[in-house]
């Protein structure tokens, strides 16, 4: 595709439920990143994939958060037992190879936990 796409655009769920957020990176980009952006703040790093493997997951806040990228393309961010504090915009970005390449962002998924 022309750019990074994310689905759904908006997700409303109830406290305690499980959610999955999907990211489709730019074709050919091997690096993929997830960020979380709370209202009025800058994005915060969650996890970075190089190919199929998570090269850096130091930003995941706790073990309720998990992400996969099984075929080195599409990635899914999974949140178990959602809490109201998980409400935020979840941004995905991809870059051609690694850290020297510019990251291109998707439009984000706005997650609201009621």
């Amino acid at each position, binding site marked *: 595709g022309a750019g990074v796409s994310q689905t759904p655009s908006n997700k409303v769920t109830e406290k305690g439920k499980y959610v999955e957020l999907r990211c489709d990176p730019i074709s050919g980009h091997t*690096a993929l*990143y997830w*960020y979380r952006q709370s209202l*009025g*703040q*800058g*994005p*915060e*790093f969650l996890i*970075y994939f190089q190919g199929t493997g998570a*090269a*850096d997951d130091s*930003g995941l806040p706790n073990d309720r958060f998990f992400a996969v990228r099984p075929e080195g393309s599409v990635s899914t961010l999974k949140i178990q037992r959602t809490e109201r504090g998980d409400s935020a*915009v979840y*941004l995905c*970005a991809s870059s051609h190879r*690694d*850290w*020297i390449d*510019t*990251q*291109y*962002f*998707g*439009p*984000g998924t*706005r997650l609201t936990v009621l």
Partner: protein
Amino acid sequence: AQTVTQSQPEMSVQEAETVTLSCTYDTSESDYYLFWYKQPPSRQMILVIRQEAYKQQNATENRFSVNFQKAAKSFSLKISDSQLGDAAMYFCALSEYGNKLVFGAGTILRVKS
């Protein structure tokens, strides 16, 4: 630890005028990259300009230019001939070896007609 500070929560500029957004950062690395991203209400984070730390020449992209002061760890963005479409949240970001981008808190830019 790498940090990015944007000290201006909000700025205003008259259409066709020039505005400068400030950013300071801290890093222990000598090789890194700096970015300015624009985020309109649509949420799409758009790259405005990128600066490699090893390059002394300031980056420019049409009406956008930076003033990169490596010793002072300062990276300001100048927008010339401001347009209504420039109104957005602007984020300064730092990337050093390790891939994660570290963002500042952002500056809201309002453009008055």
